[in-house]
């Protein structure tokens, strides 16, 4: 589980780099905003269209050139059947070439939206033509430089140790000198006890060992069964950063159970295939495993296809599917009842509160230690939606107290959120 800790520095470098790229990109503002277009494209178009490839719909590279009239293109995107009905030759031809499959209408699109999408398409097409592959890997070179701000305590520790040794030597010298002086004076002094037999020293050392050992034992015992920072290797290199971060797919699209059930639900493969039927290649920023090994995104998508039995060339399922055996990261003991929907729907919590900056994680690790203390601390401080949620109307006393300005808010703890049988039954 400490795989992550050892490579933390490098990861930070990558994220800074990404952030910079993002900032530069956002600076180049044009009349039509391709970044806005990207979001729209991914939300509305990507399930049937690819810029470079023909999938359910045609490849969109050069779409503006193919349409003679820009207005007609706008109309086509907003409501394709109306263009077909108008009898435009190109439109009818296109319609029949794609087996008379009607493209869904998007009446909500404004002209600006459509322009944004088209800008995104042309931008992507231009990048694709120029070949954006093979950017320098986020640097092994930079990793060393990041080692900064080391802990002072280590320094102090070393100094203390040196001083202790010096003190010990001095004490030894002192006793030897004393002995010499005594010999010189002819006073019979008993043979000094060597320090490793000195009872005071031994007692001190044992005491020190006991304290240090006890400290580690207790900490070890407390952390038994806790898995903070647990980051197992998964059967498929699935990047939350690419999906939820870069492509801004809503968490609940895949983890639909988070609103309905105690389980957030690992999405079934058919959910993956909603998008990956058309997205068969990875074209985003380069991916690296936590160890720094480069990951071929397209090959990872192929792994998904192998599991579901999808043949991307034939565009059909050719083999029976088999489930993906993900390694579970967040494990709660059996005696804990945790309900996602309670926190997401009733408590209106963000996923990130407990799962951390999931949109930044290529490989997910456990962000919180998921200990009882961690849960209870949050329940002590979190305020419930007391006035907004009618469920709480039964707590007349608290409502009165708020009115009387005795309290200003109600925490989860005040309505029984730290009681045993909130979570243990």
């Amino acid at each position: 589980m400490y795989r992550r800790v050892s490579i933390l520095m490098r990861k930070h470098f990558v994220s800074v780099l990404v952030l910079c790229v993002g900032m530069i990109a956002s600076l180049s503002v044009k009349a039509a905003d391709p970044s806005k277009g990207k979001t729209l494209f991914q939300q509305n178009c990507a399930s049937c269209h690819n810029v470079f490839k023909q999938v359910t719909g045609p490849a969109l590279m050069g779409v503006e050139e193919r349409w003679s009239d820009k207005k007609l293109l706008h109309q086509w995107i907003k409501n394709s059947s109306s263009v077909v009905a108008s009898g435009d030759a190109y439109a009818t031809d296109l319609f029949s070439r794609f087996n008379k499959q009607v493209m869904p209408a998007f009446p909500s699109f404004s002209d600006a939206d459509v322009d944004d999408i088209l800008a995104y398409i042309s931008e992507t097409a231009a990048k694709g033509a120029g070949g954006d592959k093979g950017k320098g890997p986020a640097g092994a070179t930079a990793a060393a430089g990041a080692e900064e701000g080391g802990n002072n305590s280590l320094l102090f520790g070393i100094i203390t140790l040196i001083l202790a040794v010096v003190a010990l030597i001095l004490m030894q010298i002192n006793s030897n000198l004393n002995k010499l002086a005594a010999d010189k004076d002819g006073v019979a002094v008993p043979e000094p006890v060597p320090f490793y037999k000195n009872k005071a020293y031994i007692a001190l050392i044992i005491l020190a060992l006991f304290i240090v050992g006890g400290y580690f034992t207790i900490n070890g015992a407390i952390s038994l069964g806790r898995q903070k920072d647990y980051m197992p290797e998964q059967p498929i290199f699935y990047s939350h950063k690419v999906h939820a971060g870069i492509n801004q797919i809503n968490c609940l699209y895949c983890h639909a159970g988070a609103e309905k059930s105690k389980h957030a639900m690992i999405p079934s493969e058919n959910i993956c295939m909603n998008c990956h039927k058309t997205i068969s290649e990875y074209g985003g920023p380069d991916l690296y495993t936590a160890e720094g090994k480069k990951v071929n995104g397209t090959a990872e998508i192929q792994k998904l296809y192998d599991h579901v039995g999808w043949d991307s060339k034939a565009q059909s399922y050719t083999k029976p599917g088999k489930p993906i055996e993900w390694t579970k990261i967040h494990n709660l003991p059996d005696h804990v009842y945790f309900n996602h929907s309670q926190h997401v729907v009733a408590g209106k919590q963000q996923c990130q509160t407990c799962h951390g900056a999931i949109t930044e994680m290529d490989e997910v690790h456990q962000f919180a230690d998921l200990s009882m203390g961690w849960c209870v601390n949050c329940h002590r401080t979190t305020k419930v939606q007391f006035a907004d949620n009618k469920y709480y109307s039964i707590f007349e006393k608290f409502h009165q107290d708020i009115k009387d300005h005795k309290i200003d808010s109600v925490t989860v703890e005040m309505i029984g959120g730290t009681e045993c049988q909130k979570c243990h039954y």
Partner: protein
Amino acid sequence: MEQKKYWKGLEELHNTKEHQENVKNEFREDLPFEESESLLNATTPRRDFLKYLGFTTAAATIAASCETPVRKAIPYVNKPEEITPGVPNYYASTYAVDGEYVPVVVKTREGRPIKIDGNELSSVSGSASTARVQGAVLSLYDAARLRFPTINGAETTWAELDKQVTAALAGLAGAPIALLTSTIISPSTKKVIAAFQAKYPSFRHVTYDAVSYSGMLLANEASYGKRALPVYHFENAKTIVSLGADFLGTWLNPVEYAKQYGVNRKIDEKKPEMSKHFHFESMMSVTGANADERYTHKPSETGAVALALLSAVGGAVSKPAIADKRLAEGIEKAAKSLRENQGKALVVSGSNDVNIQIIVNAINNQIGANGATIDWASTVGYRQGIDSDMVQLVSDLKSGSVGALFVYGVNPAYDYYDAAGFTEGIKKAKLTVTFNDRKDETSELFKYAAPAHHFLESWGDAEGRTGYYSFIQPTIAPLFKTRAFETTLLTWSGNTTTWEDFLKNEWITKLGGQEAWDKVLQDGIIEPALAPAPGSAAFTGDVAAAAAAINSAKKGGKLELVLYEKVAIGNGKEANNPWLQEMPDPITRSTWDNYAVISNTLAKTYNTQLGDDYEINAERKVLKIKANGKEIELPLLILPGIHPDVIAIAVGYGRNQNAGKAAGGVGKNAYPLVSYNGKTFDYFSVDTAVEATSKTYEIGLTQTHNSYEGRPIVKETTLEEFIKNPKEVNEDREELAQQFDHDFRKNGTLYPDVHQYNGIKWGMSIDLNTCFGCGACTIACQAENNVSVVGKEQVIKAHEMHWLRIDRYFAGDENNPEVVFQPMLCQHCDNAPCENVCPVAATNHSSEGINQMAYNRCIGTRYCANNCPYKVRRFNWRDWNGADSFDNNLYDVGGMNDSLTRMVLNPDVVVRSRGVMEKCSFCVQRLQDAKLTAKKAGRPMKDGEAKTACQVACSADAIVFGNVNDKESRIYKVRNEEQTNRSYYVLEQLHVLPSISYLAKIRNKDAEPKAEVKGHHEAAHEGAKHEA
């Protein structure tokens, strides 16, 4: 009001020295060394001890510090739309085993059925259920079920089986084919059978019920021209007379009758009235225990009692002589009440004798029940077996004139009175096929086994009463390679349609479309919009002939035997259910066995060796009983209230090992004691001989556990007294209030009241008047809360785990006692004595008034259990569910430690480990769920959204549960508005402030003579002296 003395058993009544000793040492547990002689006698030197100690500590440390196991999360490839992991799905289905009709709703989690409750939409039984319905979900995961089709016991494929059987059927050359089934109430299954008959004209279908109601069917045919059973309306009856019909426990469809019966047992304080129930029987049944007036007679006198009653209500028969004065008076009283409630009365009889049933029909005709409380316009098919058909079939089998024999859902080799004859007959049939679910006593004699699905895996329908349908749909894919009985039959009749399609086609044609069919499956039932008005039928029975036949019947001998069904085990078909085996019998309070029930008087007459400790020790003397030419040896069990000259034995026990781990070898089979009188089976013997043997046998009796030690915990009065002075029953509460300045809660203690209930305060009210003691709640609780089964050996040590027990108390005369059932569960005291003795605060109080138990905090000191005045805390002495994780540490009761059986566990409730305390949690998982649903929707929680498992299962709504802070809730109204005079708390004077209130029991009987009350008073004093 005078406090009656209540006793659980004779040991408590007589307050023997041994009983006092037993009560004193309730919490003493001997070290479990008796299990190992070598351990007890081992001489372990101190050094060895230290070595072991060191080794085990080190080993445990190393084991605990091992790497955390890697867990997998495996999603679906293609998730079915209706399944969300963690959210239960509910499917409507029907419990239609052996003719019982209970529309149910099955709760499934992640595709596994885990709980069965009644279907609220059904007007027949509503959300109510019985212990057996609740237990059916465990039967699904029964490890003893057949897992594939077999030929001569060897596994085969369905294709091979089909091939061989069809060939054999073709080779029969017209020799008759017989299908033997228990009662089938599915109209579509009957159509499938008819289709098979069309293909094989030599086919006949024989219905055989293990416990027969043939007498009723034939009597109804003779009386009304209909070989059927009417619909009973107990809810319309002001007077109910039962001649041995245990309609609240085992008779026909008890859940339906209990629901109806409950209607008139509820008391409206503003207008107190209730039905009056007379009961005449030999053994004490659950129904008898609930009767207002109960009389006993010998089984041979049943006919005479019926005749006397007919004559007393004005029937044209001569009155037979009744020797027992009390009984004769009782008949007169019952008759008087029946006459007074003309048209609002009902008489039922549990007899299987045609003539007696004709007389009962005549009585009902006389008192105007026909068409009022008995509806002949609709009929029910709860039992259809005619005994003579079965006898004929067996004689045909024996003569070799049956070519092929199919059995489905019956087990005559076990439960037929002449099992040997049946077994012999099978050998002569050319083709034998069993559809039974396990290799039971019958199936093991058959060549082909074509196991059918469990009903939770099947499709089907059921016609409860005319025009009332309920449907069965699969709640899980078949666990094993089984196939629907109907599909098999269709295949063999050359029809390639599956049963599912057949059923669907049937109903889609009938209902007129897929949409209607979907709706019906969702609701689970079809019922007429308006309940049809009861109709009558013309009575044409020959009363004189019946009376003559009764009068000429064989007179009884000194001792008589009666066979009965236990509420949990019934006819024994579902005996391999550890939940049902361990459910304490409502009357005898014993588990896991059958026994010879006798009265104390009888026990004394021929047995001088019964010591004073007899009642409290599990060891029971074994009796040898001879009846109907058969012999059986069973331990005796003394029960107050049974007729002194009667021995009662439960059927349904004594299954062989193939029936399963729980049923195999438990008890003795009493079916061989049944006899055939030429028309019907007799479940009694008028001439029985008994002798004591020197053997003893241990019975797992729970009666002596959790003694209340003479404290006043039950309150009751009679209807008459209650009308006269409604305040009297709660006099002591009034005194308490006055003593503490009308605020006992606040002034009853020196300490401040620390608990505030700002939002919700859960509370429960239990009506002792409508608790019939049937035990459905106990099993519902067990299923909901993963309550463990401990086995007989541990029950004897008082280690049973039930969170909810139903205490049965006797009061009054030892030979004709009154009975009270009191459900006892954690009272969730606001001032809980258990909480402040816990050294680790594992049990503490919630802001909603729940006495919560954090299992993982518990270190097992058991101080809490010792300090609980209600004795409701249960300690896990062993790992009851996961002992199979150590190979040589198997303590497996009835196969509960099995991966298959564990599928029944509720995933929302923790399975408790060894060494921790547990108790009723008010079904906290259900409460949290209801709260969450409301919270997510942003609305206040409605009353009735949060229900406990016991509350749902109760057929008479005896349990009301809810938020006491909500002034609109049922529980608030019951306590503060509707039932203020009857509402009381058990042991209120202790100031533990329980959250459960009880409603005092009211009996509709004449007030007792004052002298007797005085006697009780003295007895109570004596009890108090003993305590001191």
